[in-house]
Structure formats: structure tokens, C-alpha cells
């Protein structure tokens, strides 16, 4: 009996698959969140209210002006809806990567690095915030209302775009989250800095890029790719020419932009992880 413990694994049967570790981490995370039911419910409601505020801000703007950057209220709501859905999907998955700073400060990241799984995916699976489901629901509701108000003429291509755009928008936001959090490998107190790009990016994408100007628009819309999250896909869904004169192809460019951003983020992450300093003892 005693020898069983020290024998190396040779039996091929009952060996979990390569992805089982991530799946189980996710499930465990869900279970431990459900341990605190009351706080879970409160967060769910709180998050819902937060998104309502975002929508209210858009509506209030239109009480002063009938047109914003060449877009009507339903059109802007569609852009906001797409932006919020992208962001909330990303937030659900990797929003808690902010906790990486705690992992790094407390040295818990050591434990992450000694397991035979991707460090990034461990953080993602270990920190999935179910409470943020409320925001996803809310974003979907806003999107559906906007689509109705805007009298969209549906084609199969537009329907596909409605799924593709938020999915890859989420990937783009996720890349910004990951790249931003990587800064904490060098500077532990870097939260506000990366927030400028993540939450700042969400607010940027919620309005047509025509309302911004100069270097700021260039940097956020094209430099960081935020124009491809909601603005360009919304143009195609609304069948509206780009006031800035861009080609129609841009509406379908979000997968390319998002995957490029993911590549850059992965690269930065790999450099960052080599600069991890751990903590004393």
C-alpha cells in the first residue's frame, strides 16, 4: 500500500484531458462565489444599475442636441450597446485581471507560476466574476432596444456582424486589459494608469468617433483600435456611410484588429512575466 504513493503515474486510464484543469478552475471559482450568496446578489444588482447610468448619460445628451457627431439617438444607442456588450463580455472574462496586482503584491503569483498551466489562463479562470453577468444582460437589452428604434434592415451579413463585432470587441478590450495589467510586473501600483485605457476605452467606444478630434481620435480610434469595436460595425448594421470617408471594409475589420491586439498583448505579457520579482522570503 505504502509504495503506491511513490510510484510514478503510468496508468493511461482516467487521466484528465489537457483542458480539464482550466474547466475545473472555472467551476471551483463559481462554487466559491456562490458561497457568498447575499453579496453576490447585491453585486449583481449594483452592476446593473451602473450600466443603466451609462445609458442615462447618452439619453441626457440628446436632450440638448438632436444629433451627436452626425448620429441620431437610436444610432448612438446602437454604438453604445455594441460597446457595452463588448466591454461587459470582456469584463466578465478578464475584468478581474486587476486582481493580478494583489497576486503580485502578496506573492500569490508564485503559486500560479508553479502549476503546469498557462499563468494568464489561470488568472482568467480563477477570477471569472459571475456578478458581472448583470452588465452583459443589461448591454443586450440596450442593444435590442437600439436595434428596434433604428429600424435596421436585416440582411444575413448584418446579423452575422451583430455576433462577430461584440465577440472580437471583447477580445480587443481583453488585450488592452492584459497589456495594461502587465505594467504591474514593473510597477505594482499601476492601477489608475491602465484604467485610463480600459475604462477610458469603454467610454470612448460608446460614442461615435466623429465626436472626438485630432491626435486623441487617432490614438484611441486607430492606434488602440477602439473604432473597430462599435463604431465601424454599427455603420454597416445601420447601412450608413462613414462621415469620415473610410471604406466599408473597415466595418468587418474588427477580427483582424482584435487578433493583432491579442498578439501584441501576449507578447507584452511574456516580457512582463520575466520581470516578475516575487516578494521577500
Amino acid at each position, binding site marked *: *500500500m*505504502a509504495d*503506491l*504513493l*511513490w*510510484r*510514478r*503515474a503510468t*496508468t*493511461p*486510464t*482516467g*487521466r*484528465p*484531458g*489537457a483542458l*480539464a*484543469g482550466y*474547466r*475545473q*478552475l472555472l467551476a*471551483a471559482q463559481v*462554487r*466559491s462565489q456562490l*458561497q457568498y450568496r447575499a453579496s453576490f446578489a447585491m453585486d449583481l444588482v449594483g452592476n446593473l444599475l451602473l450600466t443603466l447610468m451609462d445609458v442615462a448619460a447618452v439619453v441626457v445628451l440628446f436632450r440638448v442636441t438632436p444629433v451627436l457627431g452626425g448620429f441620431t439617438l437610436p444610432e448612438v444607442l446602437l454604438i453604445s450597446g455594441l460597446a457595452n456588450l463588448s466591454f461587459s463580455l470582456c469584463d466578465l472574462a478578464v475584468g478581474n485581471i486587476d486582481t493580478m496586482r494583489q497576486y503580485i503584491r*502578496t*506573492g*500569490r503569483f*508564485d*503559486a500560479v*507560476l*508553479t*502549476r*503546469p*498551466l*498557462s499563468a494568464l489562463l489561470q488568472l482568467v479562470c480563477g477570477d471569472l466574476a459571475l456578478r458581472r453577468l448583470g452588465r452583459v444582460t443589461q448591454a443586450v437589452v440596450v442593444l435590442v432596444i437600439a436595434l428596434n428604434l433604428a429600424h435596421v434592415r436585416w440582411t444575413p451579413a448584418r446579423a452575422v456582424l451583430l455576433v462577430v463585432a461584440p465577440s472580437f470587441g471583447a477580445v480587443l478590450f481583453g488585450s488592452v486589459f492584459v497589456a495594461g495589467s502587465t505594467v504591474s510586473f514593473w510597477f505594482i501600483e499601476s492601477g489608475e494608469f491602465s484604467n485610463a485605457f480600459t475604462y477610458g476605452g469603454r467610454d470612448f467606444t460608446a460614442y461615435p468617433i466623429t465626436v472626438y478630434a485630432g491626435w486623441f481620435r487617432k490614438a484611441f480610434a486607430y492606434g488602440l483600435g477602439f473604432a473597430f469595436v462599435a463604431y465601424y460595425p454599427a455603420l454597416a448594421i445601420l447601412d450608413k456611410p462613414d462621415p469620415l470617408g473610410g471604406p466599408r471594409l473597415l466595418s468587418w475589420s474588427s477580427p483582424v484588429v482584435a487578433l493583432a491586439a491579442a498578439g501584441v498583448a501576449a507578447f507584452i505579457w511574456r516580457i512582463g512575466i*520575466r*520581470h*516578475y*520579482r*516575487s516578494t*521577500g*522570503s
Partner: protein
Amino acid sequence: MSEIVISTADLRKEFTVSTRVGLLRRARRTVPAVAGVDLTVARGEMLGYIGPNGAGKSTTLKMLTGVLTPSSGEVTVCGFRPVAQRTRLARQIGVVFGQRSQLWWDLPLAESFRLLRYIYRVPAADHAARLAECRRLLDLDAFLDTPVRQLSLGQRMRGEITAALLHSPEVLFLDEPTIGLDVVSKQAVRAFLADLGSRGDTTLVLTTHDLADIEKLCRRLVVIDHGRVVHDGTLPELHARYDSRRRVVVDLDTPWAGRTGVPGAVVEAVEADGHRVTFGLSGGTAGELVAALARDGALRDVAVLEPDIEDVVARLYAEPAGDDRVASR
């Protein structure tokens, strides 16, 4: 020599520390934490890696486990380069860091073990067998269903060790595994690790400040100071080299009269008006000394003090730096 599981050559790690000077200016300086460590460990060795706080013990361990990227030098563990092949190495090693948990805080201990089976992709039967064995040897049954956050430190440490062993690692790294534990838990952990090490299959590398850990668990000691290896050998060799002694403290009914006592013992201190005397043993045994004292007069109490590894280590550091500091094994 048998199979080599760990080898390092001129392993170094430097940290850049920036300190604020003035309002905005910062001065950056480079602090060497590990300054050229050469280490070779064969399969089945039980290695104690000791030294004062800040000597570079943990930094070395973190470079061996793929947590930290070395500044320079070579390192191979189980045939892998730790950082570049981190996930593959992770399957071959177990890691217990005394002061931080590998377990899931909010979940019952048993649940952590179950998760680890999926993370390390351990076949169900092997996992069940190893877990059953650890449950028996480490007495885990009473708190398997308790959330980890509610465990005592001793219980948690037993859980940590089990967690590190469920995938049957080739090398088990332990960073201060007995720190803060009560006596009973310390003994349980020590006995378990000693048993594990004696099987010769698993290589143990541990850092500790606890002399009993070193005596029970380390056949070989590597002493590190200021990032360099200053001694590499067995515990008796270390004591012999630094002339460290066991001590016998006796309380006497009549004051110590300054008799020469027995050969192999020297008087180190006389206290309480001669009623308490401390002898240092250099060659003789405590039994001989006590017998000799008992013949001379009434002996009220006797205490035998083991040589303090901290003393030895402290003496090591006091030695002038030179070529003879690096002892050969």
C-alpha cells in the same frame, strides 16, 4: 554518481532597487541576491539550503522552480530550463512555500486535492492511492471537508504538503515548511518528510531555520550567505569545521568549586553563585560528564543543549572572505 536532477552554474539574480532621493529623483542601484551559485543535486538527495534571512535562499528556490528568471547563469531542473519550460517542469516538481498557500482559500481541503488532479492531469487511480496514503500518514481525515481558510496552520501545512505530492513529483521544494508550527505538527511534518526522503525516489530541497529539521531531514547542507555558497557538506562536517559543541547545563546543590571535571568538556559559564554551570562538550559525552559530576556532589538538574545551527551559521559569516570559504563536498 547517480542521476543529476538539479544543476546550476554561476547562477545569479540581481534586483534593481530604486530609492527616492529628493522630490522626484530616484537613485537606482543593483543588489545581488544570488551571486554565482554552483549546485549539483542527485536524485534522492535530501538537501538543506540554509543561511540567514536575505542570504538568497528563497531567490534560489524561485529560480529553480521557474518563478523567477535568473539574471545570468545556467540552471537545469529535471532536464528542463525552469522559466522557458515552466509548465513541463511544473509537472515534475512539487512546491511548498511555508508562508503562502497553494490551496484554494474558500474551498474544502478535499476540493483543492480534487482540483489538483485535473491541473496536473493525474490518473484517477494514482491520485486516489496517493491521497489515501497521505491521509493516513498525515492524519488529514478530520479536516478534509473544512474550508482551507478555517484550518489551523499545522493542518494547512499538512494539506500543502499533500497537495505538492499528489502528482508524484521528482523533486519536492520546501521553503520553511515548519515555520510557525506547533511541536506536534512539526514532528508530524518532519516524520513524514523523513520517510519520504528515505525512500530515495524523491529529491528533497528545503530551506529552514530549524535545527531539528536539518538534523532529521538533511543529509547534506548547503550554507549560503550574501548570495554565495559558503559551505557544502554534512551537518557533522559543518559542526567539526566550526567547532560547535553540544552543551550541558547543570544545577548543583553546592557551588561549583572549579574542579577540572572530565576530559572532553570545558566550562563555558558559571552562574547563580556557582550553582549553575554550563559545559561545552568537545569529544566527551553528556553521560560521562553527568556521571563524573554526580560522583562529586549532589546534582539537582541537568539539561543538554544541542548545538545551535544559528550559532554555527553566525560563525560562518564572521569568517573572513577567502578561497577557503568554499568548502569542497
